[in-house]
């Protein structure tokens, strides 16, 4: 009880200042917490956008052209001309980019299915690398391995259209006119191919209305080269080390394919950067609000605390004079400031968490990044703790310096502030 009275009692006429200091600090903590929650929510929105847009990925693709497709095993159907990527990309030139290369051979094949023919998109991929940028959710069986032979993984829509299941086989016509039999080793429940080719012909699709290919057969590059009869690529993704490296990677790729008019290099980094620029400005605004509030209200609160501390110099000296150790005297005389700043930080942050909107949309340009969900995390706790400690330190520093500089006897003889 005595300790509680020593720490929290004896404010006298400074009691009102202590209460005002607490109120100001609660308000400051609430504003800082609210602002930082918005900043954190916005950062998460940017991170989500970056995850979805992958601005660090550069696409290299061949021109889209019409190619003649013979209808296999039939003499009474006319040949088809269907638009596909041309295989114009030399993989060796991609290595000049100095980044991770995800080679692809994307092509279309007519596959016999029962008594009809199906247009099926076939993708030769590097399985491990491709899985880092595209989404493959395996429902049954397994995904491809880089050392696989003539096996295929396909999504539900293509499997259903081909009438095959796990362990089943289907033939694909190779460039030399022979058939290769692919064994199904995995069925995909979900497929999100990064930078898929345009869907220009009637083919199975997981999302029927989509203008991009949403369904297909995946094989290893080795198998696709065997089907395709050549090592050149139709398209490829080049992943820069960081998004900021993209301009340099694009520059190197354009230089490498300078003499190839049918090869195009495109990136989403520039668009992404424009998209997040306003967002970053908004973040800066909220951060500035938080910093200004912390600075102004914090210094005001610290000044009020300083007045209370100045009044307590005599208590500190008295306790020392009757035998309290310096640390005990310091705790008894300064504990209330720490408790006030700490409690204000806790109450303020709880108010902010309780009353902050769960989610809200930013206006106009910023809306493209989706809604912001303000979030409270350990970083905000650390900032609030730092703010409380700084206010406490700022409030007590002049008094502490005076107590340290003067003897106990001199501090005892000081009049109350």
């Amino acid at each position, binding site marked *: 009880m005595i300790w509680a*009275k020593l720490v929290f*009692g004896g404010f006298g006429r400074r009691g009102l200042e202590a209460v005002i200091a607490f109120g100001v600090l609660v308000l400051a903590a609430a504003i800082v917490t609210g602002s930082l929650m918005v900043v954190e929510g916005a950062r998460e929105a940017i991170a989500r956008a970056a995850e979805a847009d992958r601005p660090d990925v550069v696409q290299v693709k061949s021109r889209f052209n019409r190619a003649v497709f013979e209808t296999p095993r039939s003499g009474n159907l006319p040949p088809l001309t269907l638009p596909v990527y041309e295989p114009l990309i030399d993989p060796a030139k991609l290595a000049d980019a100095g980044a991770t290369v995800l080679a692809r051979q994307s092509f279309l094949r007519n596959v016999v299915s029962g008594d009809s023919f199906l247009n099926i998109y076939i993708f030769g991929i590097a399985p491990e690398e491709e899985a880092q940028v595209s989404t493959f959710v395996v429902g049954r069986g397994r995904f491809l391995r880089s050392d696989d032979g003539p096996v295929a993984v396909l999504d539900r829509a293509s499997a259903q259209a081909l009438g095959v299941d796990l362990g089943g086989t289907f033939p694909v016509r190779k460039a030399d006119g022979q058939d290769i039999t692919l064994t199904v080793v995995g069925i995909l429940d979900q497929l999100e191919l990064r930078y898929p080719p345009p869907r220009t012909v009637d083919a199975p699709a997981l999302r029927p209305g989509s203008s991009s290919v949403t369904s297909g057969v995946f094989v290893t590059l080795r198998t696709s080269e065997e089907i395709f009869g050549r090592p050149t690529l139709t398209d490829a993704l080049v992943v820069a080390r960081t998004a900021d490296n993209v301009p340099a990677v694009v520059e190197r790729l354009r230089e490498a394919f300078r003499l190839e008019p049918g090869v195009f290099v495109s990136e989403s980094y520039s668009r992404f950067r424009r998209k997040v620029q306003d967002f970053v400005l908004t973040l800066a605004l909220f951060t500035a609000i938080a910093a200004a509030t912390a600075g102004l209200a914090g210094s005001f609160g610290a000044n009020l605390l300083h007045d209370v501390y100045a009044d307590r110099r005599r208590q500190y000296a008295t306790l020392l004079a009757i035998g309290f150790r*310096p640390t005990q005297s310091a705790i008894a005389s300064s504990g209330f400031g720490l408790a006030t700043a700490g409690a204000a930080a806790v109450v303020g942050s709880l108010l902010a968490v309780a009353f902050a909107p769960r989610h809200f949309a930013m206006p106009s340009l910023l809306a493209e990044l989706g809604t912001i969900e303000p979030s409270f995390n350990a970083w905000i706790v650390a900032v609030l703790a730092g703010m409380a400690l700084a206010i406490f330190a700022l409030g007590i520093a002049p008094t502490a310096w005076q107590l340290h500089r003067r003897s*106990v006897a001199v501090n005892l003889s000081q009049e109350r502030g």
Partner: protein
Amino acid sequence: MTICVRSVTKTYSRGRQSITALQNVSFEIAEGELVLLVGPSGSGKTTLLNLIAALDRPDRGEISVGGLNVTGLSRSAAAAYRNERVGMIFQSYNLLPQLTALENILLPLVPAGRPNRRRAMELLEAVGLGDRAAHRPSELSGGEQQRVAIARALVNDPALILADEPIGNLDDKDARAKSSLCCRMRAAGGARPCSSSPTTAR
């Protein structure tokens, strides 16, 4: 517990002005002695008591109490010295306003974590304030506050009591009673110098 003061000098600086409160003071007080320091205001009585209590440091000279050199103690060691050996009665009482009379008396026992309420109550009754235990200093008269300060100085049975104007604010009747309390303290043993004004000394 013998007190040895050797060639002690203490000077205060006020702006550009220096005030010498003590100059080359030397004396010795034997165990069990009751000593009254008499002198006009500003003659350095309080300064000398502060130095003996290790509340301040002399510019020159040395003070030892019971063989302990108190002039070179750290703040922490000085606090321990005061808590274990010294009972200090301040001229301005220095009671904490948020504590009751009883709690103020208990205060010197708090650092060691052994607040003995019975002992504090006995002392409060000995100074005639048994019925004012729950009163705060602001609810007590100057003389009553001084009596609480005396009880606080005695609560941890110090070997040395340093009293700065201990009965200056008491009326004649109370002053005689407290003087007799001082004599009883002396009878219990130990060296007990008191600083006081000429009036109190008479």
